[in-house]
């Protein structure tokens, strides 16, 4: 395997987040009753007239701009012919020789960029389910707007292919053009795979792998296929040019069709849809809507003192980044805002199965809680109780964090005159820990602090307790 260089190119289909389908006003919805979102247009009945959805075209343009593509002022739709039960018209409306976007690249996040070939608009096909002896067809997905993003074969490992998809997904989610949810099929991927002896050798025979439908599957399918091709080449045989289907249950790719059976799609211009001209002003308006990229945000977070790891977690999703930034802005403490967002906030959203933007503790509220800790009114343990109380409050006007502090009785005790008697009492009760500490076992201090916290129900100011303890314990 080490003798061969893998060459991988990905073609990614992304469903656009519109309300309706690409050429008709049926809902673009997932998970509804089979064959409930259909009309004569998307079901391919004769004599109907497809009319492009303006928003779908614009979301495609926005995606292309987010990926740095050259958006083309003139493009057209074409018919791509093939027969399959989930394509009722017998052709798919796609774009052939004049796609709406060329070039562009995907930034892997480590300084490397993978160039793109093109992006084009097209309609999705229906969904087939294969049962013993027959197949079932659901046409709900027919006509859902897609963009197909064609990457150049410049990836050289399954891990890089994963990084490519991860980056692409972040970029498209930041541009709010798609949910990119592989589980729900809103992002799907085909891979072209070949091996060559050295990095300057001509490309080997490529195999196309279809049906790779999760991020985990991508790496597994590529690992399998690369090993299969290496074994063939090592034995002195040649790899057949073909299309193979990834079978997740068996963990293998299997032949779907050979080169001889390759499709002749007989593309020709779609006569029912006049060409699309994109004015510079239209393109510029979409450029305005492309949010700051995740790469730029990540960089900015690192410049504010966050670790590369924190910056990566916080930019995984635009809602997480937005929540963090709003909190940071309101409390002016990037580190605290990052810690809270990554731990309690993400956990709360996960446990409740809701988006971070729907949590009852809004960034402003969280910033107030952080402020109460900064000002010494509560300690971290108290802050967490306040956070959870507001999180689980009923609907209606919310308590402020300050009110929650009172209601919970978690105001921190910072007055040394109040704390010293408690410290002395605990020292008297824990003679062994005191002796251990004086013998040099500094860890014994933690046990004492723990007892003091327990006695004050977590309200003692840890810093003041530390000072008193060190003073009283010094010889």
């Amino acid at each position, binding site marked *: 395997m080490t003798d061969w260089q893998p060459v991988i190119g990905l073609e990614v289909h992304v469903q656009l987040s519109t309300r309706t389908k690409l050429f008709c006003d049926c809902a673009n919805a997932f998970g509804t009753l089979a064959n409930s979102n259909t009309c004569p247009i998307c079901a391919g009945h004769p004599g109907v007239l497809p009319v492009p959805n303006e928003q779908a075209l614009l979301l495609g343009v926005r995606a292309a701009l987010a990926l740095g593509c050259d958006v083309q002022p003139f493009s057209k739709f074409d018919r791509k012919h093939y027969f399959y039960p989930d394509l009722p018209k017998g052709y798919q409306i796609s774009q052939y020789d004049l796609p709406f976007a060329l070039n562009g690249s995907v930034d892997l996040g480590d300084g490397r960029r993978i160039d793109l070939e093109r992006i084009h608009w097209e309609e999705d096909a229906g969904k087939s389910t294969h049962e013993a002896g027959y197949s079932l067809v*659901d*046409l709900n997905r027919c006509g859902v707007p897609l963009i197909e993003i064609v990457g150049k074969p410049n990836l050289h490992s399954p891990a890089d292919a994963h990084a490519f998809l991860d980056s692409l997904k972040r970029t498209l989610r930041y541009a709010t053009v798609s949910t990119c949810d592989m589980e729900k099929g809103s992002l799907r991927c085909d891979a072209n795979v070949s091996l060559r002896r050295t990095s300057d050798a001509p490309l080997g025979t490529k195999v196309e792998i279809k049906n790779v439908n999760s991020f985990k599957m991508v790496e597994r399918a590529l690992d399998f296929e690369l090993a299969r091709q290496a074994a063939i080449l090592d034995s002195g045989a040649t790899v057949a040019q073909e299309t193979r289907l990834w079978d997740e249950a068996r963990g293998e790719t299997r032949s779907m069709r050979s080169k001889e059976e390759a499709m002749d799609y007989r593309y020709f211009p779609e006569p029912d849809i006049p060409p699309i001209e994109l004015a510079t002003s239209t393109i510029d308006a979409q450029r305005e809507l492309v949010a700051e990229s995740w790469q730029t945000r990540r960089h900015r977070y690192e410049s504010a003192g966050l670790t590369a790891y924190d910056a990566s977690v916080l930019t995984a999703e635009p809602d997480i980044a937005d929540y963090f930034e709003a909190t940071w802005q309101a409390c002016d403490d990037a580190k605290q805002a990052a810690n809270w967002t990554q731990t309690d906030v993400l956990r709360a959203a996960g446990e409740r199965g809701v988006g971070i933007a729907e949590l009852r503790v809004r960034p402003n509220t969280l910033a107030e809680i952080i402020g109460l800790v900064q000002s010494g009114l509560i300690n971290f343990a108290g802050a967490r109780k306040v956070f959870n109380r507001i999180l689980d409050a009923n609907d209606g006007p919310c308590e402020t964090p300050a009110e929650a502090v009172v209601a919970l009785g978690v105001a921190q005790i910072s007055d040394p005159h109040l704390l010293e008697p408690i410290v002395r009492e605990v020292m008297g009760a824990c003679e062994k820990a005191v002796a251990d500490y004086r013998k040099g076992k500094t860890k014994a201090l933690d046990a004492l602090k723990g007892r003091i916290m327990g006695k004050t129900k977590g309200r003692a100011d840890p810093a003041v307790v530390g000072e008193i303890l060190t003073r009283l314990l010094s010889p």
Partner: protein
Amino acid sequence: MDKPQPTEIKVLAELARLRLEDQTAARIAGQLERILDWFRSLDAIDTAGVEPSPYAVVLRNVTRPDEPATATDDLPHGQDILNCGPEQTKDCYLVPPVLGS
């Protein structure tokens, strides 16, 4: 230009999912040749300086807003469409097996 061969006719028929007997293929080859000849009369037109265009009309950007169908639409939807299929089960069109047997 070469005259269409019966083998090419067979390939075209296969792509269009038509089953043709050899005799029919030979007859169609002759007809197709006459059709192509008729189109070749376009070759006589001087197109120097004319930009190629895939369309005969000057229409551009015919689009619609992203608004869902309303209850007042008179187009058939959903179940009406499904009922057009010859066989159905589990709210789906029932078709012959697609993957092998």
